[in-house]
């Protein structure tokens, strides 16, 4: 087994495995799988990256708990569309056929697919409430729509969707490396295991458990009660509404938000770049403008012609 295959396989299995500790029947994962043209590249002498990914997927999906809900979303549509495997209970009978149909071609529209994946997970969380909701991005390159990635990332995270990234054979860290829950290169299965294992969270500790030897209660003591209550209310009211890029996009200068220009340099919470309007409405507006301009020009031309 190639290192890539092993890493992806271990990554997925750990993602699934650690989650089952808390609520085995309620693991919900969307794997965003890079099937762009670059994945045709060879992983080693005998196996391409995409073939290694297919083998890894088969193994992981085969071993995933029957009660989990897993979906595999492609960056570029396959024969069945964007979803190689729709988010839901795994249909093992059709698994082989689905994965076999996977091919690599196209670019890396990661931002657009992050929204699709997040919306699917949020819809599921709205219905199920409980469980763990994760997005696992497996990619060998940077997004071809980096602005969208930056636009969607904060609102996805603000809704409590955990994003893990596995960079496949990347020379540098993926640009999401500093902004997501975990990032590991695919050739580092051991540290990947530890990073995902750290996602398993506890409740509270009475004994000192940090480097400074402080108990949780000592850390909390100076937090005002009202702030604690309001913070809990805000945390427990995480929205399941679909991701809207405009909603979280406008920088708020009036607040202390790290989104704004006052965000500390070391916050790790990247301020998104100014929005670039790529919506169909804008294109429509341009067309309307061209049409009006052409009509005016024709009228002017006709007027001039008549004056002659």
């Amino acid at each position, binding site marked *: 087994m190639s290192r890539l295959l092993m890493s992806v396989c271990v990554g997925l299995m750990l993602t699934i495995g650690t989650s089952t500790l808390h609520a085995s029947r309620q693991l919900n994962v969307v794997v965003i799988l890079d099937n762009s043209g670059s994945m045709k590249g060879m992983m080693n002498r005998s196996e391409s990256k995409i073939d290694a990914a297919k083998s890894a997927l088969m193994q992981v999906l085969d071993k995933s708990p029957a009660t989990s809900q897993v979906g595999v979303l492609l960056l570029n549509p396959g024969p069945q569309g964007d979803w190689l495997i729709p988010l839901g209970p795994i249909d093992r009978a059709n698994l082989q056929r689905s994965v076999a149909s996977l091919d690599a071609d196209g670019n890396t529209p990661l931002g657009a697919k992050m929204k699709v994946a997040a919306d699917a997970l949020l819809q599921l969380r709205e219905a199920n409430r409980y469980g763990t909701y994760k997005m696992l991005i497996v990619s060998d390159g940077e997004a071809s729509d980096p602005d969208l990635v930056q636009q969607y990332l904060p609102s996805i995270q603000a809704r409590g969707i955990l994003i893990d990234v596995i960079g496949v054979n990347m020379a540098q860290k993926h640009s999401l490396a500093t902004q997501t829950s975990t990032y590991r290169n695919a050739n580092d299965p051991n540290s990947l295991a530890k990073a995902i294992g750290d996602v398993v969270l506890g409740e509270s500790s009475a004994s000192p458990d940090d480097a400074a030897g402080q108990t949780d209660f000592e850390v909390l003591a100076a937090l005002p009660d009202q*702030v604690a209550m309001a913070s809990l209310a805000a945390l427990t009211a*995480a929205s399941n509404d679909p991701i809207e890029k405009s909603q979280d996009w406008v920088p708020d200068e009036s607040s*202390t938000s790290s989104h704004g220009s006052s965000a500390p340099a070391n916050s790790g919470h990247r301020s998104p770049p100014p929005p670039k309007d790529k919506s169909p409405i804008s294109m429509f507006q341009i067309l309307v403008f061209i049409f009006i301009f052409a009509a005016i020009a024709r009228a002017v031309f006709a007027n001039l012609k008549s004056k002659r």
Partner: protein
Amino acid sequence: MFGKVSWLLALCVLFTTSNVHSQELFSGITGPLDVKEVQNSGPVNVPYITWGGDAATFYANGGLDTTPDSIYGKSGLKLKLTAGDDFVQQVKDYMGGKSPYLRGTFRMLGQASEVIGSDPRTKPVIIMQLSWSAGDHIVSRKELKTLNDLKREGKKVKIACQQGGPHVGLLYDALAAAQLTNEDVEIVFVKDLTGPDGAAEKFRTDSSIDACCVITPDMIGLTGGVDSAGTGAEGTVEGAHVLVSTQNMTRSIADVYAVRSDWYKSHREEVEKFVAGYLKGTVEVKKMRDDFEKTQRMSSEYRQLLTSCQKIFGEEVLPTLEVDAHGLLLDCNFVGLPGQIAFFNQSGNLSGFQPKLTAALDLATKWGYAKTRKGFDPAGFDYKKIASMAGVEYVEPQRIVKGESITAFPGDDLDSDTIVSFTISFEPNQTDFSVDRYGSEFDRALQAASTFGGAAVVIRGHADPTKTLVQLLTVGMKKGLIVRTGQKGQYKYYLKTQNGNQELDLNQTPAMVKLIESGAFEGASDSPLQTMQAALNLSLARAEQVKQSITQYAEQRGVNVNLSQLQPLGAGISDPVISKPSSIAEAKQNMRVEFRIVKVNPEDLSETDFDF
């Protein structure tokens, strides 16, 4: 069905000589009684009371006097049905031999137990359960939200209730559900069940009365409806609402027939015919009632039955057939043959004969109706034989019923629908809920599930928010959103703002909330939102574990339980007792599983819910 019933307007003149404001031994109410042999010539007198369950008796008998073509007539019985709403008079007639039968609720018989059980000849044999009530209610003022509120510091809650009537048992069960007794409240006994001297009028005219036990028409008159609150208009009392109802407390008030022990010994075959005929009548009456409810088309046979009820109970009690007479029948849940078997024979039925007898005698002795515990006997019928005589299919009652649970999430009106609640606590990361430690709570939950047959027992897990809050601070500090100064034990937190660092105090709460909502604390491997979600999952896992432990406990003890009533929910950190614990002891107060008895729509219930 709730707006339809204006029956029972002149019902149950019980305890007419009783002292309104104090309890009295039942023997003192009846005075000295001589036991005489049962009159054994002519038709047998059988008392009835104003209740929907008695309509099946009329139907089986063909009216007050047995008609030849009726169910009882064909089986050779000759009965004369007589008004028995005056229960004291019933007891006098029973002891004096005018009738071998007693008709009442199990608890009313319990209150009279010392009198009727003092002579072996009159010791009651309970021969049949007719129905469970779904038409009795405790109405309270606005400030009383759940049964837990019936106990308060300082001034006792005052509850108006008819002395010795069917509501005494309801009140006893309601208090027991909150682990209270009559010592914890002030019961103001009134003379009548309804009318000028009833509990509803007392509640309406005396503002010091906090709650009252009433029948459906009075409940509607005070509140406007079972799910409404009075506005003060049209005779309602502002803020008055149903605190608990037998629509949810479906196994509280059991209507029964008893016969004298000496009569049973000498007339067992007749008694069997009486029971079999009633069961046969029940099947047909239920079908007619349910058909009308479904189609709104009244068959001539059902119209005839309702007209008969109207004639017997009086037009002032049942002014209309479609609303009042039909509503009277809707307010009772006929138990049928499986429910009969479950009540008398099924072991592990927490609402069966033995538990009800114990509760009835507890009530009688603790509340001052009796000094000694004189019990009753069950008839001990062969129900296969009874089924054959009745011409109904013999069906064993269910035991542990598996079904879909209700679906509701914390906060989805759970508070407003909660009838009563209690809590168990546990240790951090605890997953084992042993019988040794939690057996009494499991018993209480099972008893609640049984008594509140029309309610869900929500098992609501909670998690402590300490870790989530700590993570919020530590992630905030890592990201530079929060700055901490000072030494251990004397920390101060500051929020980074455009205007520099501002101390994290009450004024900074909106800014902190905005940061959380924007996702500013997310994105790292330590995620407060993920910790919150993990706590939510953990709280559900604990609730599910508790349900599993209760189920195993019930199975081991042979207790019947309707699993669809037990609904595990996870509340996570959303509703902590202490938002910011300062010690593990305070954190443990948050680590708890709460049992809530929650109202469900009566339409969600099925007939089989009453099989055990």
